[in-house]
């Protein structure tokens, strides 16, 4: 036992220039971010079956967690004063090009002026099938997203609440149906307090008047007098009413979930990958590859995404767009194994899968998958060996109006 203490001291003496294993950290962070809590090979333990609110939400990216948290929080009374802020004019979305991408989906190349989207340059926005969005709808949805970005920024900069980080306020835009001296009534939300001290602030600086609010305006009503989902503590604070620039429907989870960013794949800039829309997208790990046993940190961790063209016991072929086919060599028919066995055990590993019919998560030809692999930084081969393969993920999403249920992207 004494020796173990000595080991612990040795570990504690690690100088900062001796970095921990990047691949391990990346794997953990990737699991956390993409929510892949399942792997037939490495997840031998059952996880906590009772799913808490946070556990349910942890599968979603930060933006969605916050959006849902805010949506779920009960607004309390006892507010002190109100501010009315309009986000109109703070940002401007312009379309450079509307086209069809290599996967047959509508795609918008846009410029987001005054919008703090965390997406890197070269990002385009794909309008996913099922949403029936026109290019004009896509632009409006993106403008709404920018509005929510700006609202979030303002709240974080101005609201006095440590535990209320409302980055996005999806499903919280409502039309004003009535205003009195002290209340505002919102469609589908009912009556809310509206103190006489209400102000209008335009572009963060310009003071406006409470009288700028009128029936028919689309607003987002926010109060930081709420219970934090993390601390469970109630905080006292203020009410802010944000005037929105678009119709209420463009601020909904439903519409926003159909506008998805795409950009260069990790360490693979020639390839195009779906980025998280921050709302309902996630991935499901199908299988680990052979690379985890031979991780060489001098190699790049790369990703590629595309549609399954074929699979058998020796390889998986994936169409990554623009006529390029990647071949991933395998040591067995891992997709068939997933379809025949793994998919039926998903529910026992995590409750996120328990309400989804396993049949709906089976991989078919044409489905979107993502593949992680290791490669020499100077090489960009289209043929990847089993020992390079890190893992294969199925691109999935939560159904916007029923976040407990998954479907393939």
């Amino acid at each position, binding site marked *: 036992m004494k020796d173990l203490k000595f080991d612990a001291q040795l570990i504690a003496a690690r100088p900062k220039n001796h970095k*921990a294993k990047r691949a391990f950290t990346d794997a*953990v962070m990737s699991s956390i971010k993409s929510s892949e809590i399942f792997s037939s090979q490495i997840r031998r333990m059952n996880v*906590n079956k009772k799913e808490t609110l946070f556990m349910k939400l942890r599968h979603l990216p930060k933006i969605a967690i916050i959006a849902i948290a805010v949506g779920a929080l009960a607004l309390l009374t006892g507010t002190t004063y109100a501010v009315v802020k309009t986000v109109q004019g703070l940002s401007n979305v312009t379309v450079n090009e509307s086209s069809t991408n290599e996967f047959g989906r509508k795609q918008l190349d846009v410029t987001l002026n005054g919008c703090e989207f965390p997406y890197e340059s070269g990002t385009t926005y794909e309008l996913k099938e099922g949403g029936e969005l026109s290019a004009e709808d896509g632009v409006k949805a993106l403008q709404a997203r920018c509005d929510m970005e700006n609202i979030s920024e303002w709240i974080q900069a101005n609201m006095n609440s440590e535990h209320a980080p409302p980055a996005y306020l999806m499903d919280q835009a409502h039309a004003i149906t009535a205003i009195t001296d002290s209340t505002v009534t919102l469609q589908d939300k009912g009556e809310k307090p509206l103190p006489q001290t209400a102000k209008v602030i335009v572009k963060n600086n310009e003071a406006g008047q409470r009288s700028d609010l009128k029936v028919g305006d689309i607003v987002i009503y926010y109060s930081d007098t709420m219970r934090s989902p993390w601390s469970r503590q109630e905080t006292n604070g203020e009410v802010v009413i944000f005037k929105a620039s678009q119709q209420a429907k463009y601020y909904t989870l439903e519409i926003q979930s159909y506008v998805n960013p795409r950009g260069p794949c990790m360490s693979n800039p020639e390839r195009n990958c779906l980025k998280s829309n921050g709302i309902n997208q996630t991935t499901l790990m199908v299988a680990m590859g052979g690379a985890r046993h031979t991780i060489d940190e001098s190699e790049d961790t790369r990703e590629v995404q595309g549609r399954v063209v074929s699979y058998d016991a020796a390889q998986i072929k994936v169409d990554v767009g623009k006529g390029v086919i990647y071949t991933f060599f395998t040591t067995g028919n891992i997709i068939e194994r997933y379809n025949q066995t793994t998919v039926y055990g998903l529910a026992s590993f995590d409750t996120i899968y328990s309400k989804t019919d396993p049949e709906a998560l089976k991989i078919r030809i044409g489905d979107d998958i993502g593949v992680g692999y290791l490669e020499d930084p100077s090489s960009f081969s289209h043929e990847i060996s089993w020992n390079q393969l890190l893992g294969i993920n199925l691109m999935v999403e939560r159904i916007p109006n029923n976040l407990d249920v998954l479907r393939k992207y």
Partner: protein
Amino acid sequence: MDEQACIRKVLSGDVEAFRDLVDRYQTGLIIHCENLLKDRQDGEDVAQEAFIKAYAHLPKFSQDKARFSTWLYQIATNLCIDLLRKNKRKVHVKDIEARLEAVEPAHTIEEDIERIRKAVAELEPPKYAAIIKAYFWEGKSYQDIAATYHTSTNTVGTWISRAKLQLKEKLS
């Protein structure tokens, strides 16, 4: 960033802040799990699972009651016990608990840290220093080190034992 600030950032929605915690504790945690499970790969898998579980349950973690590292090691230890039981291996929980107490990340004062670093740097042959750094500071497995030195894992184990003996003498 200190640990508490890191945890606060994660809880406020900054997922990326969790990376610091993974970097900080992964090497020790992997070694701890490896020692319990007698298998490096299982140790890495369980350590990974422990970090994911810690992230998922972070809102329940109370900094008033325990250090994050204590809590994290407890999660990992429980996962190891589950795995050992699942694999029908004998589990001596008391031994494991004693081991947990021993391996928990040490609060070593700066002066001792410097002494340890100096002693490591002075190991002879220098290969021993490289191996100690690789295993305890860089998270390399016996297999990784064996591959680097084109030798067997048993030999790596012998080298590490000899290096630790030298270190203890230097530090005593």
